[in-house]
């Protein structure tokens, strides 16, 4: 360190300003001379950081930041009478299921049951039309006006008709609905509610709740036709979503990712975890991932990915098992967050500033049932009822590695930022060197060894035009995939992908682009300039996204980070390989069966950004790399 400082230390004599300028030049020279090394180190640091995310020493989720919540500090009143009531509701719901009751019949039944309890109840029918298919349904909802309060605030307790198991593949959430009904009959006996309680049984998986929430908040959506609600709406801070698809359950799982990567305040999840453990006596897990560290046979997908001969020796190390368990949680989180569609019905609440999560009763043969779930739900309701103000402490940016441990934003954000910075340095490096050229040392009075450099023009405008063009192509692609002709036909999707993949060839054949490739002594090539700007743009996009949707930014960092930065091979056949590889990277998603349909559905139904981001940002960025490849 001393030596390093001595290097920059000003000599005792001389003009201090001059010394400062010299010192600055020295530092710049030092950095630029080692730019490749710095970029490489940043890349390695960034990717390594992502890999070790599951092992970073983490914060436990014991501490509750909001003092008003007071979780698990009540004696619950939910008892076997309520369990019996829930069982009776379940019988009737099963009867409705077995008789193939229509949405309207189900909603009518639910409305009648709510009315029998003395609640204000109503139904709402809705129709969504998207290019990948329409969906209709009828929601049922009820309002318990809290005694002694003016009814300006509310808590929502919801269950969707279809469980999140299989993401709406038809598994029904009958026990969840029965729990909500029984809870409605239970809570009206108490006068300690400070907020109105709204019970919602939404039809379908996500569509019903989307229609209900839009109507509740007076938000209109062009492709949605829904009835207005018959209850006066008020401010909602917290919503609890119940999902109980099985016969009994062994663990309660937390699903918390919202649309576009939004997360609920972690205090809510922490309270739920504490309540579930202390009041309900049920273990809490993240998602449906059971912590099976005692049993190496079932360590999930990650464990089984290892070759069989390696499994026993490696999996016998406890740290490895812990890593695998945490990593599977982190991967699942990244999957939900990056896709933007969220992990359940609760996902739809977050954009209205409602903290919501799904308590998922993991199907098992036992030991828990309505008794545990009801107690946990009652206690969580009481905790939400205690709130004097919205959950506001900055516990919105976190990553759960298990239900017990979480990473703060400072622990995971730098990984993506490292990659982004590396890309930015690399891009700026290319940009700078594109502005200079070596000229032959013609002047004889100069020393032979001296390299002489001169400024040259960078063709910025044509390059920006090319970049704008790729994004315009992206916009066209976005329009095309949102048409029913393409969204529903995987053949046409592949066709569109192939057409777009040929566009760089058409572009490079354009005489104007070809003529832009002038004398390299006076002007940098289009390819080099494009590459520089492309990498800089990609880096900027990743940095910005990292605070909005970390997992999406991390996915882009993995997909684009090194791939955009590596030099284009020089051989002609290698170039073609690169061309095809880049095209596959940028347009390959069009060929994944069902992926386009899912993205389009998410965009048109729920307003998930994934489709526009992929079409208008990700694909154009890779297309620019393809053009670089073609022009080099």
């Amino acid at each position, binding site marked *: 360190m001393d030596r390093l400082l001595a290097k920059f230390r000003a000599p005792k004599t001389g*003009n201090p*300003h*001059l010394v400062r*300028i*010299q010192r600055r*030049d020295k530092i710049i020279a030092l950095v630029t001379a080692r730019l490749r090394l710095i970029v490489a180190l940043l890349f390695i640091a960034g990717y390594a950081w992502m890999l070790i995310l599951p092992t970073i020493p983490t914060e436990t989720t014991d501490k509750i930041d909001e003092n*008003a919540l007071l979780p698990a500090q009540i004696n619950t009143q939910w008892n076997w*009478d309520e369990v019996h009531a829930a069982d009776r509701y379940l019988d009737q719901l099963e009867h409705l299921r077995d008789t193939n009751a229509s949405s309207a019949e189900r909603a009518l039944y639910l409305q*009648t049951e709510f*009315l*029998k*309890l*003395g609640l204000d109840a109503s139904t709402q029918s809705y129709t969504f039309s998207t290019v990948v298919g329409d969906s209709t349904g009828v929601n049922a909802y009820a309002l318990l*006006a809290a*005694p*002694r*309060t*003016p*009814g*300006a*605030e509310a808590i929502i307790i919801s269950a969707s008709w279809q469980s999140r198991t299989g993401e709406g593949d038809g598994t029904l959430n009958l026990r969840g609905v029965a729990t909500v009904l029984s809870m409605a009959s239970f809570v*009206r*006996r*108490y*006068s300690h509610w400070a907020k109105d309680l709204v019970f919602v049984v939404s039809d379908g998986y996500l569509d019903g709740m989307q229609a209900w929430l839009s109507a509740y*908040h*007076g*938000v209109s959506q062009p492709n949605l036709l829904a009835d*207005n609600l018959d*209850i*006066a*709406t*008020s*401010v909602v801070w917290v919503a609890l979503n119940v999902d109980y698809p099985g016969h009994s359950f062994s663990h309660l799982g937390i699903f918390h990712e919202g649309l576009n990567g939004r997360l609920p305040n972690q205090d809510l999840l922490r309270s739920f975890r504490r309540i579930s453990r202390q009041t309900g006596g049920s273990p809490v897990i993240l998602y449906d991932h059971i912590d099976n560290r005692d049993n190496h046979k079932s360590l999930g997908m990650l464990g089984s990915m290892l070759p069989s001969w390696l499994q026993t020796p490696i999996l016998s190390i406890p740290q490895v098992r812990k890593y695998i368990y945490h990593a599977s949680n982190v991967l699942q989180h990244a999957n939900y967050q990056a896709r933007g569609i969220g992990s359940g019905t609760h996902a739809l609440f977050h*954009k*209205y*500033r409602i903290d919501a999560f799904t308590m998922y009763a993991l199907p098992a043969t036992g030991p828990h049932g309505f008794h545990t779930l009801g107690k946990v739900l009652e206690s969580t309701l009481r905790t939400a009822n205690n709130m*004097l*103000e*919205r959950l*506001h*402490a*900055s516990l919105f940016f976190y990553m759960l590695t298990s239900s017990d441990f979480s990473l703060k934003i400072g622990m995971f954000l730098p990984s993506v930022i490292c990659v982004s910075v590396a890309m930015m340095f690399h891009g700026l490096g290319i940009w700078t060197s594109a502005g200079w050229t070596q000229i032959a040392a013609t002047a004889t009075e100069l020393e032979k060894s001296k390299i002489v450099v001169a400024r040259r023009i960078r063709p910025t405008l044509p390059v920006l035009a090319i970049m704008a063009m790729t994004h315009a192509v992206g916009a066209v692609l976005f329009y095309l995939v949102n048409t029913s002709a393409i969204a529903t036909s995987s053949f046409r999707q592949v066709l569109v992908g192939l057409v777009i993949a040929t566009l760089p060839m058409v572009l490079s054949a354009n005489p104007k682009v070809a003529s832009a490739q002038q004398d390299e002594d006076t002007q940098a090539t289009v390819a080099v300039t494009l590459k520089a700007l492309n990498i800089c743009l990609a880096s900027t996009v990743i940095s910005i996204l990292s605070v909005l949707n970390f997992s999406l930014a991390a996915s882009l960092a993995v997909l684009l980070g090194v791939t955009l930065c590596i030099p284009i091979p020089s051989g002609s056949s290698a170039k073609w390989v690169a061309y095809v590889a880049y095209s596959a990277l940028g347009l390959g998603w069009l060929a994944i069966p069902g992926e386009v349909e899912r993205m389009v559905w998410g965009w048109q139904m729920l307003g998930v950004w994934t489709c526009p981001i992929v079409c208008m940002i990700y694909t154009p960025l890779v297309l620019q790399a393809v053009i670089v490849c073609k022009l080099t």
Partner: protein
Amino acid sequence: MILLPTLCLLFLTVAAVENESFSEDVALRTLPDGRVATTFTFNTILEKEAPRDPRTLFDDQDESQHYTLFPLSLGQVLREYAVTELHLTLNAGKWDYDKWGYPSEPDVGSGASLWTWMADGAPNSIDARWSGLRNALAGLFCASLGTLDEQRTTSPVIPFAPEGSLPDWGIPHRLRHASLASEHVCTENLTPFLKLLPCKGLSGIASLLNPHRLFDADWHGMGIHVLWDPAVGVQVRMTFQTVTNPLRAGNIRKEDWSFRSLFDRRIERVCPVASSSQVSVGLPSRGMYNLKPEPHHITDNMGHYDLTKDFEPMDVSIKWKNAFEYLLEPITPHPMPISFRRMLHGNSQDRGQLVVTLDNHLDNAIDILYLETMPWMVQFYLHTMTVEHNGSVDNTLLSNLSYIPPVPHAQPATFQVIVTLPAQAHIKLSIDVTKAFLRYTEHPPDAQRGWDLPPAVFMPLDASPLDAKNETLTTYPRGKRIYSSPMLVDLATPDFSMPYNVIIFSCSLVAFLFGTIFNLLTRKWVVLKLDGEKEKEE
């Protein structure tokens, strides 16, 4: 020894007869949804007296206030500020008009609400007296009425017309009205209320006012109403209304009630100074029931008990034969002429939309006066106001619009419009609003749950004639105020839980920006020659 208090009592009674009288009354009725509405009314009349003329406020001598039954502490306040008419209500809960019908006492808006008529022309301004009155009542009733300041005071004359008469002194009378939706009502407000009664809470009907049970009711509210009638005198009407839910407790499936179950008390003795003391019970029109004891007389489906005659400790109870079942259909005919909902849509912190839906349940058109006294935090864009009638826009349904715009940081808006509701119509009135950005000192130091907006007031106007054939419609009260529930609005709020992070972060940013620019502006630019390589080149 026993004779002495009795003699005093006798003397008091005699004194009261001279120019003061006190009567008490409690009415109970079972509501269609199984709840029980109770209204306590305590009337004290100061006969042949008139309110104080404000022009005499600075005279040395006011008339002596020798009251025996009339509450002295309230009387002093009334004379000090020369109040002609006063209405103070402190309510908790949401009055569900669609299920419960019209309340016996019309002022049921949530929170605290105060409105007075005072004569102008006094040496000190009406606003100064209004401010003094607020603070005096705040002290008297332990309520935060002091915060009903200029930012909440309005003067909507039409819906708040005087209940009594205004003396003709040749000077105009003015209305001052303010409400505070976030005020909580509890036992600290009941204690001073009871102190104003001649028998306190010790005997008579007032002994039923047991705070443990009253404040557990689904809805409860107290009111003090002072008005003047030239034929009678100055009248103080003190009311306490509750809506209790007998079906709430445990697994009871019947809406049975008794004084014991509702108030955990019974009437042990009468108030000796009460000139009349009456218990009325609404006789339900459905089901088989048993009312005990037998009413003394029955009028208009009401059983009456006169406590002043042959009194023995009393516990009225009503028991049903069959279990209660909630109605699965709305009540017909609807208990109200109109239903309404008021909502604030939009989840952003700067814009929103106020939506009011109105349903006319009558077979004839009806005019509704709609009043908003909106704090300046929420400002209307009047040009965006639209009315949809059964789905299509029809702005002709609005008339007589008057709007006093708000003054930011100072004065609320008063918005008043007459809406014509065609027969059986569903009307949706919407108006875009902007939410103000508050100065940071304007945020209260409490937990930030949002800002309570006062209830809107709807008032059916008598203009539309009633259908004489349809007798059920004639039972609709006309020209009475209907209160919506208050709303909560989210304004842009800094995160006060971490001010230092914010201060440090923003200060660093400002220092960095300022420092850089200041440095560039004040630096002296000189040409420096780098020695070494450059010199060699030369």
